[in-house]
């Protein structure tokens, strides 16, 4: 399987964490919270689009609100593929992060 990029991974996790509240704005907040960096809204959609295209996330429309110019919110949730991908990442991570306690800078 194809490995995801870091930001794709974070977005996927954010969507899972947000559960049924995962729409664009909320995902961005979540990503900002996780990384501590200011993410521009636009920067979310590139990776999100790719995830959507590759079938890791599914979308569904919510209720229209006036502040969105009458548009509906679009909620994202993980697809079977998405969950599989996260599990896979987790597995890979736990293998390669295995001895992380020993990580320290050695003075010579």
């Amino acid at each position, binding site marked *: 399987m194809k490995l995801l990029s870091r930001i794709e991974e974070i977005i996927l996790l954010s969507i899972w964490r947000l559960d049924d509240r995962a*729409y*664009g*704005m909320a995902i961005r907040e979540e990503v900002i919270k996780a990384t501590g960096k200011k*993410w*521009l*809204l*636009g*920067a*979310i*959609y*590139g*990776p*999100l*689009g*790719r995830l*959507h*295209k590759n079938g890791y996330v599914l*979308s569904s429309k919510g209720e229209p*609100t*006036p*502040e*969105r*110019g*009458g*548009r*509906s*919110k*679009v909620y994202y949730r993980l697809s079977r593929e998405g969950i599989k991908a996260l599990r896979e990442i987790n597995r890979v991570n736990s293998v390669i992060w295995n001895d992380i306690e020993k990580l320290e800078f050695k003075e010579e």
Partner: protein
Amino acid sequence: MNRQTIKPPRIAVRILEFIIQKDIQYGALGDFEEQFYWMRKEHGLFKARLLYWKQIAGALPYFIQNTIIWSLIMFKNYLKTIFRNTTRHRGYSFINLAGLAIGMACTLLILLWVKDELSYDRFHENGKNIYRIMSYGTKYMIEGIDGTPAPLAPAVKEEVPGIVNYARFSDIPKLVFKYADKVFYETRGLIADPSIFEIFTFPFVQGDPKTALSEPLDIVITETMAKKYFGTEDPMGKTIEVEGNLAAVKGVIRDIPHNSHIQFDFLSSYEFIEEVTNYGTNWGAFNFVTYLQLEANRDIHEIGKNITAVAAKNNCPQVKDGVEFRLQPLSAIHLDNRGAFRNYAEVGDRKYVYVFSIIAFFVLFIACVNFMNLSTARSTTRAKEVGMRKTVGASRKNLILQFFGESLFLTLTACVFALILVIVMLPAFNQIAGKDLKLDLIDIQLVFGLIIIVLLTALTAGSYPAIYLSSFKPVKVLKGVFKSEGKGKTFRKVLVVTQFSLSIALLIGTSVTYNQLRFLRHSKLGFNTENIVYVPVKENIGKSYDAFKAELLSDPNINSVAAQYYLFADESFRTTGYDWEGKERGQQVDIILNLVDYDFIPMMGLELVEGRNFSKEYATDATRAYILNEEAIKQMRMQNPVGKQFSYGQRKGTIIGVLKNAHFRSLHLKIEPHVLFFLDDVSAATEYGVILIKINGDKTEEALAKIQGVWKEFNPITPFEYHFLDQKYDSLYRKEQKIGTILNAFTLFAVIISCLGLFGLASFLTEQRTREIGIRKVLGASESSIVFLLSKQFTKWVLIANIFAWPAAYFIMNEWLKSFAYRISIGIWAFVLPGILAVSIALVTVSYQAIRAAWANPADSLRYE
């Protein structure tokens, strides 16, 4: 409610739509708008907008990485496809490229021509505020002439508000200039007010514009003229002998640009004419051209009315009779200069600017049609490619872009060839058009024009292929059952018919123009122009005219000699100051007057319908006799004119003869009233006078040598100069001849391009039917029947094209012919011949392919079945 109306910046939204992936766009747009909404609540509208833009910028890096890089990779593939397609079908590619290149070259040439026509008089710094005074009046049959009385301008500047400055011009007859051993005729001189240098931009190389023309005998010359007389010497302050006067060179100016309607080699001071004539106070002589410099944004109608009022107050006789003055902007003069006394520069014509622009467009369109036709006809060969591309995920938009890209690429290539063609053809074109056009690729206007031509061509040529080819259904195409559909066929028919309609219309235009010009050249003027040479009346020749004449007539190759006050083809001296027996009250007839001697009427072969010629037997003829033409008699409403009283001012006399109407002047004009006086003293005619010499047509050279010898004998100083009368009359239609030649050339190109296209189409369609032909032959069809079968369809289209071309061409050419007072009527042959020509050219083009196909051995074409 208000928050519904305040939206994010629209352009930003469009950009967003463009860069965000389609399937998540809906949600994204909503999110962005929500973001905008909260931002606006928190930071206000301005900041919200800024932040909105900033948020979008965040999407860019990903977009660039994913889209543009992939586009470049696809672009490479597209280029490869174009390259393969062009090289695989060399013949078609050549037709496409050649057609487009020729078409674009024609368009470029015409563009250069039009640009030059429109560039006249734009180089003057005050240009926008310079106007020429034009005189209009129905009574004198004056339709907008540029003549005005000399005292008008000073009076107007004094009394009418809004006028900054004025300058007056008058032309000077041909003069002999002499400096040391250099003697030349100078024909391009003008008399002008010194203010000309304040109003117009004619930069000085040497001398002071403020004082240059202040003395009566001051002259200002152009650089070229300075070089001609003085070579490397300093011309300033030198004196040139001008027919007995010593003129001092007070300034040298740069040569006048060709795109100035005011043209001259030297300027002479207004003071000079002021000294020798009374023009300065004469309100009745309309012999000055007046230019005014106005203050910005003045109402020119108002000023025109005021000028007329000033002239009326000063008892200008013409104004009392209804002449009024109007102002014409400087920039409009070149294209609307029919009324000029004497045209210093070539006169343009707005009509031809339009006509040529339209022709340029046609020729280019014809080339585009070739492209469209061949691409759609060859669609079967591209169909598989389209199918494949669609199968692997190309959207219709991708394909449309691809095909437009292809046509743009081809057009650009054609453009390079077109530029080369233009460079090659420009010298010849310049010669035909009498211009000095240059292809200046740094010129922004030109480059801009070029870009527009390329884009327009690419769009037109690529439009149908792009839409048609991209619409193929991959399933159908790849199954292999695809055949070019009926829709494409009909469209091709329409295109070919349009193409040939345009070509045939151009052919008809060419034939009508040719016939009209031939008609002008060969129509009976009512007098002879052949074998008549004329020389100017200069210095001693006027004084010793009788001896000069006798000496010439002693030569057997010289048949007769006559003198004329001025040449009808050059000038027209007209006035209404006549009286006659039975003249009605208030009746005015504008009659052109000229003076001739005894031999003029017989030499020209002019016919007298009544009365007699001037004769030595009647002593009173010298001062009392008048010969009028039929038109004059008709307009005067006179019965039995011979013997009736007629007078011009104080000169009272009788009518001794009536001339049959003859076309003394251009056939653009109706025959006008003429009156001939007797020219008693030839030496009075030194300004414009000519001596006409009828020579033996078989011994032209001997006769000319004799004339030159006699001239030298009587006139050792002035250079010998002669012209042929028939050439002079031909030159009256030079503009039309030029236009005719240009039209011929472009028609030729249009026909060539159309035929190229037809050739390509025919060869393609014949190729497609190879098997059909093979089977027909096996089943016993004769070769001729196959040629007929193949040629039939194309011939039919070209025949149909005639139906559209004829009425359109008739309408346009009829309009053009209206500019001639004497014109041919367009006969049916003017249509039939071009029609037949077009059909036969098309037939020849097609039959080459048809014959080749018909003669092919069916065994070869059927082998693979």
